């Protein structure tokens, strides 16, 4: 009788162990997937920018400086990505985001501009691209939090070692300067109509 009870307890524990192990492995893979998703969106932005800039070059000739800044930042971001260094990539991507936000602010400041050429499409595509990068980071943070929590909460934490689970860092802003609202200088453009 006692033997049967012991066997039952062991069976339950084994099921627990299998379930926890599988859950940890599945969460780890989701975290990796979400991390790579950010890279996918960043690369998509790199590929999109040249065509977008070309379609609006005619309409936004007076803002050549802003457009060139975007192209330069995009090229540096690609160069940084090819070196493989994470801090350099992060810095370059931040520069690119800054250049794009200045471009969008310019479009926003001249309402007549939206009606010319493909500027409205440009605005939409850039907004969508920035949003996707933002949501990809959000998804990464959500899945990373889920993974970290699973490793720390009671039943699953016992099997974290066996599953090879480690705490993963969240995507966060490391430079205080990034938290400042980007300053946009419109003084060199033509006066608004």
């Amino acid at each position, binding site marked *: 009788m006692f033997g049967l009870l012991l066997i039952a307890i062991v069976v339950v524990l084994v099921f627990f162990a299998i379930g926890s192990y599988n859950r940890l492995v599945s969460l780890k893979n989701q975290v990796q997937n*979400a991390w790579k998703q950010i890279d996918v969106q960043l690369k998509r932005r790199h590929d999109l920018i040249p065509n977008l800039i070309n379609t609006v070059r005619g309409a936004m000739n007076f803002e050549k400086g802003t457009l060139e800044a975007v192209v330069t930042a995009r090229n540096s971001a690609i160069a940084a990505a090819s070196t493989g260094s994470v801090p350099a990539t992060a810095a370059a991507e931040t520069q690119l985001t800054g250049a794009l936000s200045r471009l969008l602010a310019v479009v926003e400041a001249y309402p007549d501009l939206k009606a010319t050429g493909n500027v409205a*499409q440009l*605005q939409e595509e850039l907004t*969508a691209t*920035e949003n996707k990068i933002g949501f990809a980071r959000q*998804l990464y943070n959500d899945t990373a939090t889920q993974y970290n*929590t699973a490793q720390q909460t009671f039943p699953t934490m016992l099997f974290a070692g066996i599953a090879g689970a480690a705490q993963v860092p969240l995507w966060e802003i490391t430079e205080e300067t990034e938290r400042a609202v980007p300053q946009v200088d419109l003084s060199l453009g033509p006066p608004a109509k």
Partner: protein
Amino acid sequence: MASDAGNSNLFAQQEANRKASRRLVAGFIIFIAWLGFGGDIIWYLWSSSNASARASEGLPYAGIHIIPGLGMTLLLIAGVMAWWGYRFGATSLVHATGATEIIEPSTDAERRLVNVVDEMTIAAGVARPRIWLIPDRAPNAFATGVHLGDAHIAVTQGLLDSCTREELQAVVAHEMGHVANLDVRLMTLLTALIGVVALVHNAAFRWMRFGGGPRIGGRFRSRDNKGAGILVVVLLVVWLVSWVIAPLVTRYMATKVGRSREFLADAMSAQFTRNPGALADALEKIGSSTDKPVAIARSSAQLCIVDPFHSVWGDREGRFADLMATHPPLRERVARLRAMAYQADAGSQIGVPATAPVLTPAQS
């Protein structure tokens, strides 16, 4: 993938709603089982006591009802209808509205919609659903689909025309919430089960009226049936009453599940966009629209984000309104979302923006 990190109001609400829905679905299944197998049990009790009564009087043997034919038939019909709903329900609902699928966007508004759905797909971590456009001036949206890989989101032209990008994002996120939760599968299944009960209910009452009734009554009054007993009669009465109120009960359960699921989808929209205020604005805009819906059928009303027919029960509160309305009161939904928004704003004191780092035209 909905996160389980349960330290904010948002995620706790989701968990509470999930539990409530599970309980309701369990109750529904038990009720259907009682309707089917209850009848079999009564029949068995009656026939076995009848057989022993006849045996003790030396009369010829009468059969005992062992095989639960009634319960099995009911389950079989329910199974077939559920299978049909599972397999064909989603696309048939979309086609019924006359929607056209957006494969390649042809206008700026469609381009915006496709982009917004892509964004929400990333935020939700699910596969991208198929996008449909309904030719209707009244703003509304719904989602159908039974598999995560085969979902559909349909929005009306009126929604595209009247909402800002942020509001559109919030509405799409609400529908993605339904998809991610497999709410659509749940609602399809429940609709099929309600159909079963209505069908058999009608058939049973037709049979009662045209000759079944007197036969049952006759058997209970026959002299052979001394051993029937009070138990069987009581059970029979309770079972018959269940059948009479069955359509009302099943409808109540379905709307109850539907209502709590709407709150859950609102919370998930807030989770995906991190912007509950946008959904509150969108709901108010949709709720106050005066356009009459032309494309959405009354039977699909419960799938929409806001009741397209602005049922008078939709705004009332209390038990009777719960029975009749397909959606929770708009006022309460907006209030809960605004409460969430204050919650989200509290986070911004730490220095991290309350909303995801996006650039939207409306915000600059």
